[in-house]
C-alpha cells in the first residue's frame, strides 16, 4: 500500500522528541528567563497532540492512555499542594519554601522547582485530556437521521 502521508509521518516522528525536549528547556529555563510550567506544559502537550493528529487518536491513546492522563491531572495539583503541606509539616507558613533547606535561598529554589513540576504535570495532562475529549466525541445523531 502506498501511504499518502509518508512525508508528514517521517517529519513529525523526527519533530516530536525535539518538541518534548524544548518543553523541558522552557521548564527549567523558567528560573532565569521567560518560561515555566504553563508554557512548558502546553508545548509538551503539543508534542502528543501532533502525534495524535498524524498517527490517529487510537495510536496516541495507546502511547498516553486516558487513565494516566486523568491521574496525571490530579498528580500535578497534589505535587503543588504537597509542597505546601510539606512546608506546614516543617513548621512554616503554607508555601513558604524557605524552610525546605538549611539555607532559605536554597529552600526557595527547591520549592519553586517542585511547584513548577506540578504545574507542568497538570497543564500537560489537562491539554491532552481536552484534546481527547473533543477528539473522541461521537455524534449523537447520525448524519442520515437528521
Amino acid at each position, binding site marked *: 500500500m502506498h501511504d499518502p502521508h509518508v512525508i508528514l509521518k517521517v517529519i513529525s516522528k523526527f519533530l516530536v522528541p525535539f518538541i518534548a525536549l524544548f518543553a523541558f528547556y522552557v521548564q527549567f529555563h523558567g528560573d532565569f528567563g521567560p518560561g515555566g510550567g504553563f508554557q512548558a506544559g502546553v508545548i509538551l502537550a503539543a508534542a502528543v497532540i501532533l502525534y495524535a493528529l498524524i498517527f490517529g487518536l487510537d495510536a496516541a491513546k495507546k502511547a498516553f492512555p486516558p487513565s494516566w492522563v486523568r491521574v496525571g491531572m*490530579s498528580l500535578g495539583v497534589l505535587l503543588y499542594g504537597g509542597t505546601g503541606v510539606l512546608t506546614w509539616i516543617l513548621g512554616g507558613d503554607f508555601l513558604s519554601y*524557605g524552610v525546605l533547606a538549611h539555607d532559605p535561598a536554597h529552600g526557595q529554589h527547591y520549592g519553586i522547582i517542585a511547584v513548577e513540576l506540578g504545574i507542568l504535570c497538570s497543564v500537560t495532562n489537562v491539554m491532552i485530556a481536552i484534546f481527547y475529549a473533543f477528539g473522541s466525541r461521537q455524534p449523537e445523531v447520525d448524519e442520515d437521521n437528521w
Partner: protein
Amino acid sequence: MSFMPLFPQWIFEQGPAFLIVLPLLMGAIIAILPNRSMAWWFTFFVTLICTYTAFGLFQHIYFDSFLLYTMGGWAPPHGISLIVDGLSAPILLLISVMAMLTVIYALPASISEIEPKKRGPFYAAFLICFAGLMGMVITGDAFNVFVFLEVSSISTYALVAMGAARDRRSLAAAYNYLIMGSIGATFFVIGLGFLFMETGTLNMAEMSAILSDLDGGTRVSKVGYGFIVVGLGLKIAMFPLHTWLPRAYAYAPTKITIFLASTATKAAIYLLLRFTFTVFDPSFDYISIMLKYLIVGAAVVGMVFASFQAIFQSDVRRVLAYSSVAQVGYILLGIGIATSSGLAAGYLHLLNHAIIKGCLFISVGAFWYRFGITRVDDFSGLFKTMPLTMGAFTLGGLSLIGVPFTAGFVSKVKLILAAAEQEMWWAVLVIVFSSVLAIVYIGRIIMAAYFGSPPKINGSTFTKNEAPFMMLFPMWALGLMSIAIGLNAFGIGDTFVSASEIAASVLLGGRG
C-alpha cells in the same frame, strides 16, 4: 460564650490557608480514588473539618481580633494575603455548614441522581467548588478573587450539567450558565484591570488606601467599578441579569441546587460588599449614586417582578428559584440603603435566606427523591404521605414569607426599620408587598399539600412514604435553626444579629 479552648493554636495561625487547601487537595485525591464508595466519606470529613476550622476562626474574630495570613510568608502589598474579619468569618462558617449539610443529604440523593461511575468526579468537583467559594471569601487580593471565582464557577458548570442523567435540559441550562457566568467573570476581570491601571496594586487594602488618597480616582476607576458591579451582578443574579438562575437551579442535581442557592450567590454578594465598601468608599460620589439609584432600583424592581414570576411557575423548583431572585433584591436593598442599620439588615437577610432556602430546597429534593416529580400539582396530599418533609417545608416557607418568630421576620423587620429611618416609605411598601406575593407562591404549594388528597396508585390511596433520615436531618436542622433565630433560642438570634452588626461596622467603620 467562648469555645476558643476547644481549638488548637495551629488553627488560628494556619486556619485561613487550611480552609482552602484542604478541600482543593482532597478534591484532587478523590478524583483519582479507585474506590468510589470512599468518595462520600472523604467529602464528608473534609466538610466537617472545614466547619470546625471555620467555627474556630469565627470564635477568634469575636473574642480576639481579625486574622491576616500571608501566603508563603510574603508581606501584603507584594504577597497574597488572606483576611478573616467580621465580614468574611460568618460567610465562611455559613458556606462550610451548608456544604456539610448538603453532603449529608447527598448520600441518599446521589443514588438516584448520579451514575455510579460519575460519583467520584462529582464529589471531586463539589469539593473544588467549595474550595473556590471559600477562597473568594477569604482572600485579600483582588486578582485572587477572580481566580477563585473561576475555580468555583467552572466546577459549578460541570456540576449543573451532571443533572443530565435525570433531565437532559440541564445541559442547556449549564451551557447558558457557562456563557452568562463567563461574561460576568470577564467583566469582573476587566474592572480589576482598570483598577490596577489606576492604583498599580492588586492588594485590596492597598487599593483602598490609594483610591482614598486620589479621592475616588479618575474616570478609569469609575469605569472599573461599573464593570465590577455588572460582573458581580451576573453572579449574584441581580434582577435584570438573573436569567441563568431559574434554569440552572431547576435542572441541576437537587443537592447542587441546595448548595448553590445557599452559598454561591451569597459569596458573590459578599464580594460586592467588599468592593463597594472596603476597596471603594461609599463617600465617593459615583459610588453613592450607584448605590442609591442602580442597586436600590434593581433590588426593588427585582423583588416585585421576580415574585410575580414565581407565582406563575408550575414547577416548585422554579418557584423557589424566582423567589431566590426576589430575596436577593431584599439583600441588595439593604446594601443600597448603605446606612449601618441597612447593611446589617441586608447582611442578616443574607445569612437567614441561605438557611431558609437550604431548608426549602432540601425538602423539595426529598420529595423528588421519593416521587420523581416537582410540579406544584404533585404536592397534592403531601402532608399525609410525607408529613415530616412537609413540616420542614412549611417552617422554611413561613420563614421565607416572614411570619413572626421565624428568621425571615427578624431580618425583614430590620430591613423595614432601616428603610423607614431613611424615610424611604415606598421601599417599606415594596418590602411588604413582595412579602404578600411570597404568601401567594408559598401558600399555593402548602395549600395543595394540606388540602389536596394523596395520589391513588392502582386504585388504593397512597399512604405514607417518608424521606430517609439522612435527608430529614439536614432539612430539620435548618428549619429549626430558622425558628431558633426567630425566637432567639439559646441566644442564636442575638448571635446572628450581632454578627450582622459587626459586619456592618467593618464595612463602614474601620478600614482593613
